[in-house]
């Protein structure tokens, strides 16, 4: 049994006087201990909402969550607020995108680390302070004793993110959700933070859900990748396969949108046309069809199901009527 089993998770937002919005529409995936699973997609594809739903952090009013998210056999979605609060920070940790705004500006770093230690591990203030210094040291913050007395605005961006990671990992959660943890950082710092996450995860056998729009992050860190589009997983694969042979036109488009230094001079970037619409129902056709260069008549008539891909070996799941042919094969066909 996997540590986290997400089955058919759906989130619908309601607003008075407006049509409700389906943000997540039947997402399923598993995370094993020590495994890193990526959720990839553009802004608005539902990846952050998925993580907030698992953490139980969505507002009760205005959001309906259905489906199932089992953590170590316990259904998280039906836990009471109090039970969920006891698990957050202890069993489930989360690292957010913007390290500056995710830290409380008016209290010292030390208090923010010890707060969670006192809350979940019942440490005394003194014990917690000792432990906090060790934690900061572990995430690579130099001079941790001094840093504990400082305030968030006095730390650099990378240090802040390290501090946030230290706080999230303070009680050694078994599952860590990182919601675009490197988006607000410099490229060099990004690499450091990713390396740190990878190391901590390997060391502690923590399961990691990596939410990102950055395929470079996926390439460096994830064991398995789920590509999300309009609230559904459209392709799932091991990372190496995914980069070698993207099958879904959306994945293909994402990869083609990345500027490459080794591209021939004068070659244009090929972005995906349009953007994710707020509310494209997956009823009566593929939600990606309007933007898809591969769309055929069937795409706007019937909704594609998630099926095991027959062309690529390995555990490739795909939601597409007309997937992109693997490059090698296409060339072979052209030659013959």
């Amino acid at each position: 049994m996997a540590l986290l089993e997400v089955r058919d998770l759906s989130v619908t937002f309601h607003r008075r006087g407006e049509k409700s919005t389906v943000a997540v529409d039947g997402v399923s995936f598993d995370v094993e201990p020590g495994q890193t699973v990526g959720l990839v997609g553009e802004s608005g594809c539902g990846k952050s909402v998925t993580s907030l739903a698992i953490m139980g952090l969505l507002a009760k009013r205005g959001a309906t969550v259905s489906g199932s998210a089992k953590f170590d056999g316990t259904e998280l979605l039906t836990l009471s607020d109090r039970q969920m609060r006891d698990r957050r920070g202890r069993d489930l940790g989360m690292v957010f995108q913007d390290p500056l705004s995710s830290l409380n500006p008016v209290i010292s770093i030390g208090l923010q680390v010890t707060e969670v230690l006192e809350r979940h591990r019942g440490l005394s203030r003194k014990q917690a302070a000792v432990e906090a210094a060790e934690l900061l040291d572990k995430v690579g913050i130099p001079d941790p004793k001094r840093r504990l007395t400082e305030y968030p605005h006095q730390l650099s961006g990378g240090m802040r993110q390290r501090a946030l990671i230290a706080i999230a990992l303070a009680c050694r959660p078994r599952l860590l959700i990182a919601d675009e943890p490197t988006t607000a950082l410099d490229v060099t710092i990004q690499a450091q933070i990713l390396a740190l996450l990878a190391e901590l995860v390997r060391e502690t056998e923590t399961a990691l859900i990596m939410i990102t729009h950055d395929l470079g992050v996926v390439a460096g860190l994830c064991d398995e990748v789920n590509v999300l589009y309009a609230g559904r997983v459209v392709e799932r694969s091991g990372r190496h396969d995914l980069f070698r042979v993207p099958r879904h036109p959306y994945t293909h488009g994402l990869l083609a949108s990345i500027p490459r230094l080794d591209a021939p001079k004068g070659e244009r970037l090929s972005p995906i046309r349009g953007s994710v619409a707020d509310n494209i129902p997956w009823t009566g056709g593929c939600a990606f069809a309007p933007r898809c260069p591969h769309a055929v008549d069937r795409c706007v008539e019937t909704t594609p199901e998630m099926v095991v891909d027959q062309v690529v070996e390995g555990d490739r799941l795909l939601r597409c009527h007309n997937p992109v042919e693997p490059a090698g094969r296409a060339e072979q066909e052209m030659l013959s």
Partner: protein
Amino acid sequence: MSTRTDKIDELSARAADDAGVSLAAAAWRRLRRNPVFLAGAGIIVLFVVLAAAAPWLAPHDPSVPMLGDQVVKARNQIPAVQDGHPLGGDQNGRDLLSRLLLGSQQTLLVGVFATLIGLGGGLLLGTLAGALGGWVDTVVMRAVDVMLSIPGLLLAVSIGALFAQPNQYTVILAVAIVQIPIFARLLRGTMLAQRHSDHVLAARSLGVKQRAIVFRHMLPNSLGPVIVQATLVLAIAIIEAAALSFLGLGNPDDRIPEWGQMLGQAQTVIDSHPQLAFWPAGCIIVVALGFTLVGESLREALDPKSRR
């Protein structure tokens, strides 16, 4: 070249200055260099010292009409400036300077206590509404809306008039109640913004308890605008308290001088003896100005947009 190294020196000196300081300490450092703040603070300190030392500074007893023999009501004659009475006397023959000095006590006390009570009530209501939300928020805010729909001074006068025997405590209460909705609304707004802020979400993701989230994470981050408002309200409270006394809703016993009350009594003789109105009015204006200057410079120091 030298200017550049100077600049670097200055920057590194400032960086060294900043080691281990909270946002409040950083704001205080900015404040200390601001001439507007210094001017306002100077005025306030001056008047506080004068008020505290008034019993010793005042040359005469403000309640004794020692120049009574120079008052001739029929000819509208009031004691003029003379030896030992640098500002002359009032319409009852009491020493004007002494009355002004002692009057500062009443005015400052009323202003400070009215603001504190208003602040306390506003903090309570605003925290309740902002932290709990839902129907509590709706009920509190509708009540606040109703109070805010009445002009402040009018409301203070109405509340002051409710008391059969007005005294300085009823003035404090009347002025304080008017300030409550202002603080409540301000705090509730910033609390709501805090509720949806990233760091509160982060705290929730750590399982921090609701009470700690409200009092450790939301409230301290919401206080900046409230503190600024409090200094500005001090000025308003002083003016409103003076206005109540002026209208006769203050302490009827004029043996204890108060600037608003002095101003009110001066209006009957304002044509012939404008100095009786000039001095208390001037004091009210200058004190209110002092608090306003401090409030404005505080706002500037706490405003993240004005930070370098």
